[in-house]
C-alpha cells in the first residue's frame, strides 16, 4: 500500500492553507491549523489507503480542525481588519514575514480574499465543508462525498446552496451593508 510522501505537505501547502483559512475564517488560526496538521501527519509514516495525496491531507486537516475547534470556538473569532491586512502587506514587502496579502497585488485584493474566507467560514457547517472540499481544495464530488461521509448528490446540493449564499454575500448591495464579519450567512 502506498505511503504518503512527507514532501506532499510542501507540494500542497498553499492549497492546505486556503482550506484551513476557509474553515477557520482567520489567517492566524489557519497557520496554527496547518502547523498542527503537519505535526500530526509527520508524527509517523502514513498509508494512503488508495487515496490521492491531496485528499488524504485535506482529510487530515479537516479532522484536526474538527478535533480542535471545540476549544477554539470558545474564543472570539478573529477576522482580519483592513489594518491587519495592510500591516501584513508591509511585513511581506519587507521580506521578514511574508503573508498571503503580500502576494495578492494590493491590500484591497487581500481584503477581498479575507472577506471571502470570512464569508465561507460563516456558512452553515454542511455547506461550508462541501464548498471547501470542492471549490477551495479542488476535490472531485466523489472525493468530497467520501471526505464528508455523504452521497455525491448531497454534495452537489450543498455545493449549490453554498455557492448561492457566497454569491449573495459578495453581491454589491450586500457588501455595502457592512463588513464580512458583520454579515451572517446562516
Amino acid at each position: 500500500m502506498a505511503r504518503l510522501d512527507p514532501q506532499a505537505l510542501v507540494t500542497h501547502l498553499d492549497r492546505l492553507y486556503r482550506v484551513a483559512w476557509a474553515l477557520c475564517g482567520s489567517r492566524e488560526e489557519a497557520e496554527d491549523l496547518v502547523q498542527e496538521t503537519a505535526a500530526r501527519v509527520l508524527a509517523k509514516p502514513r498509508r494512503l489507503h488508495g487515496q490521492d495525496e491531496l485528499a488524504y491531507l485535506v482529510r487530515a486537516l479537516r479532522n484536526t480542525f474538527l478535533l480542535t475547534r471545540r476549544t477554539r470556538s470558545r474564543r472570539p473569532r478573529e477576522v482580519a481588519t483592513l489594518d491587519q491586512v495592510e500591516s501584513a502587506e508591509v511585513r511581506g514587502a519587507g521580506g521578514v514575514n511574508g503573508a498571503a496579502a503580500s502576494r495578492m497585488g494590493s491590500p484591497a485584493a487581500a481584503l477581498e480574499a479575507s472577506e471571502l474566507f470570512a464569508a465561507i467560514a460563516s456558512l452553515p457547517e454542511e455547506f461550508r465543508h462541501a464548498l471547501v472540499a470542492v471549490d477551495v481544495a479542488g476535490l472531485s464530488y466523489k472525493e468530497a462525498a467520501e471526505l464528508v461521509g455523504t452521497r455525491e448528490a448531497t454534495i452537489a446540493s450543498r455545493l449549490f446552496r453554498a455557492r448561492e449564499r457566497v454569491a449573495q454575500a459578495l453581491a454589491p448591495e450586500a457588501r455595502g451593508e457592512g463588513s464580512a464579519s458583520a454579515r451572517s450567512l446562516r
Partner: protein
Amino acid sequence: MMDDDMTDDEHTHPVDAPEALHALDDVVAPDSLRLAVGEAVAGAQRALERRRAARGRLWRGGTLGVAGAVIASLLIVIVLAFMAQKLIDPGDGGTAAAPGVRSVASVALRAPSDPAPAARPGGELLTAQAGPIAFPTWMRAGWHAVGARSDTIRGYELQTVFYADASGRRIGYAIADAQLPVGGGQVVTWRGARLRVLDRGATSVVTWRRDGRTCILAGRGVPVGRLLTLASYAA
C-alpha cells in the same frame, strides 16, 4: 432540506462557483508557515532515512538469526528497563529523587506570582534567566511576557515566565536546573530542533534539553505546532 438531493431548479439552473472564488487561487501560504512546514518535513525525512539506513545495516550485517537475537535482546532490555522504571517511577517519568517533566509542566500552567520581567535592550531577550539561559521575549512571534514565578520542587530550582498572545491564550516556559527524567511522548524534529511532545489531553507540552537544563513549554488550548515553533526558537 439541508441534506436533500438537488431540486429540479438546482438541476436546471446550476450556480457556478462565484467568480471571486477563483481569486482564492492567488492566496499562498506565508513564508513563515512555508519555512516551518518545510523544515518539519525535512526533519521527518532525515529521521526516515536514518531508520532505513539502520534497517539496511541490520540486514546487511548479519543473518536473520542474528537479527532475531538482537531483537530478542532489545525486547528483554526494554522489559527490564520498564520494570525497573515502574519500581522507582512516581508516575510522571520522574524518580523518587527528581521530579518528572510532566509534573514540572503543571507548574508552568499555574498563576504567576511575580511581575513580568522587562525586555533587555534589543528586544529579543528578557532580563529573567535560568543559569546561562535567558528567557526570550517572543514578541516577534506575537507573544509578550505577562508574569513569572520561581519554585523549588524536590530541591530542584524552577524558573517560569508566562506569556500571552493577542487573543488571550497563555503559555508557561519553565526551565529546571537539571536534566529531569521524561517518560513517553514523541520526539520530533521541528525547524532543526529536536523536541519532545507530551500528550496531556487539552494541554500541550513541549520539552527539550539545553545547557544541562530541562526546558518545558506548556499551554492549554494552544496548538502543539505553535508551541513547537516557539520552542524551536529557544532550543
